[in-house]
């Protein structure tokens, strides 16, 4: 195997092992930052040694043993807490008896508690949202700082800084390295889900195809979601989030035409929707339902997405059901934007007039004043009701408000079309 090949292999091994490695070390050291550094040290040693010695049979155990030895060195040098020291010495002694198996045991975490602790720590509410995202991708996704920077279109030093500061804040505030329980769990879990979904949306809302890293963000988020499902199979909203992401990702191929122009949901070629992902999404949604209780906001959004996924053609869409789901969503997660979506669904189910009543109720909503989709939706409903002059005004307003060139063009076209009727 050439040096380059070995490096590529190490890269792949790192991606597979890094989260478990960091999580295991963090359990022993009670310090995520230090755990990450030591894992990196082990990686550097692998990069030096493996090209000569070859890739070991159990690369994960090798990395763990190496990192633990470094940990001992480091602790001795820094004369850190005696307690940590003793615990590590203890583990290393075990290892001497059977080096590989002890390291394997350290990695063997049947309940995945190490990983869960790491996820909850990386997504700690103490950290800014940006820091949570960077830390999660770094510690759990195994992405390099450079890869995260490219994915978020910011300079690498910015991400590096964010990670350093995040690790420092965690260390300084002595955040308990544990999985929260009871009431706290609900809140903290929603923070974790928020981070994963934000990563997904960063990929999904990417502006153009030349950013090849961004679709991979969707894949990273989906993978994190699937990992979390395995770790917390009894939490319906985890299944709900995965369902939502799987179904949305299923449409990726249909969202642009051959020229890269955006294609709206109802105009998409449904034959290119990814049936495998739809199937997985529907199964995840079913799992969320089966676990009982009222559906959460992710599961409800997934249920809306599922209505679209199940309809063989746009005309077959069950708009009454979608409207009903949005009504529940508006209760679980009140938001003017949810109301606007509900208005669209109601107009599709019961006619434009009924939808218009709901839209007009939003006219004074402060958060929607600069939101171009409010006049765009209103214009559409007015046009369907034959009120061309008013519709034209709304489309003009929407065109003035949107930041998106293609959308502005579309709105102008619709405004002009009103003149012809």
């Amino acid at each position, binding site marked *: 195997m050439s040096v380059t090949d070995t490096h590529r292999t190490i890269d792949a091994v790192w*991606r597979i092992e890094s989260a478990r490695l960091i999580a295991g070390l963090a359990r022993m050291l009670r310090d995520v930052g230090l755990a990450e550094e030591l894992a990196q040290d082990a990686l550097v040693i692998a990069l030096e040694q493996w090209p000569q010695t070859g890739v070991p049979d159990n690369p994960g155990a090798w990395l763990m043993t190496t990192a633990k030895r470094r940990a001992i060195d480091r602790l001795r040098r820094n004369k850190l807490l005696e307690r940590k020291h003793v615990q590590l010495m203890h583990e290393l002694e075990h290892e001497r008896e059977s080096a590989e198996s002890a390291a394997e045991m350290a990695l063997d975490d049947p309940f995945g508690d190490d990983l869960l602790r790491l996820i909850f720590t990386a997504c700690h509410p103490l950290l800014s949202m940006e820091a949570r995202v960077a830390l999660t991708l770094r510690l759990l996704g195994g992405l390099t700082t450079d890869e995260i920077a490219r994915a978020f279109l910011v300079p690498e030093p910015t991400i590096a800084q964010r990670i350093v500061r995040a690790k420092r804040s965690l260390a300084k505030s002595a955040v308990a390295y544990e999985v929260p329980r009871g009431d706290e769990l609900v809140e903290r879990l929603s923070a974790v889900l928020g981070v994963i*979904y934000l990563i997904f949306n960063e990929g*999904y809302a990417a502006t153009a*195809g030349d950013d090849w890293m961004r679709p991979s963000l969707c894949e*990273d988020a989906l993978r994190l979601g699937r*990992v979390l499902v395995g770790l917390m199979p009894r939490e319906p909203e985890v299944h709900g989030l995965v369902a939502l992401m799987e179904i949305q990702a299923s449409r990726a191929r249909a*969202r642009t035409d051959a020229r890269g*122009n955006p294609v*709206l949901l109802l105009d998409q070629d449904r034959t290119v929707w990814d049936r495998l992902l739809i199937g997985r999404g529907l199964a995840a949604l079913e799992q969320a339902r089966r676990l009982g209780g009222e559906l959460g906001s992710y599961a409800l959004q997934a249920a809306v997405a599922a209505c679209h996924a199940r309809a063989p053609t746009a005309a077959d869409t069950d708009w009454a059901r979608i409207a009903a789901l949005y009504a529940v969503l508006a209760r679980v997660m009140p938001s003017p934007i949810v109301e606007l*979506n509900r208005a669209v669904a109601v107009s599709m189910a019961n006619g434009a007039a009924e939808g218009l009543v709901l839209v007009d109720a939003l006219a004074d909503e402060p958060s929607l004043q600069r939101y171009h989709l409010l006049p765009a939706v209103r214009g559409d409903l007015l046009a369907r009701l034959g009120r061309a002059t008013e519709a034209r005004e709304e489309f003009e307003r929407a065109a003035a408000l949107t930041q998106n060139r293609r959308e502005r063009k579309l709105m102008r076209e619709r405004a002009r079309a009103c003149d012809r009727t």
Partner: protein
Amino acid sequence: MRCMVIVKATADSEAGVMPGEELLAAMGKFNEELVKAGVMLAGEGLAPSAKGARVRFSGSQRQVVDGPFAETKELIAGFWLWQVRSLDEAIAWVRRCPNPMAGESVIEIRPVFEAEDFGEVFTPELREQEERLRAQLEGKR
């Protein structure tokens, strides 16, 4: 990216010899790891080609040929569909797969064609999610 990971057939698999208990257990553990890592999308084992059929196309003609088929090494005995970040990652996973057959065997990894590009305009439904995220981001700063 996605890869199809193909377990090639052997004389044993074509003869319908079922894997032993030990191999089944090892394979089960491996599959569990794949699921836990969020890698596994799908996977199935296939019945011997004796139970299958082929449809041969020649212009507008179609001819059905029943199994078994002779070229054992070209046949497949099972497959997975994996979500990985690179071919190297898929290789790293295959390296830790138990030997799927009693004797010599081959696992082939083939990347799936995928459209890399994502569009930029979203429906109100998607907008709504984006807006909410932005609100969340601003709230947490």
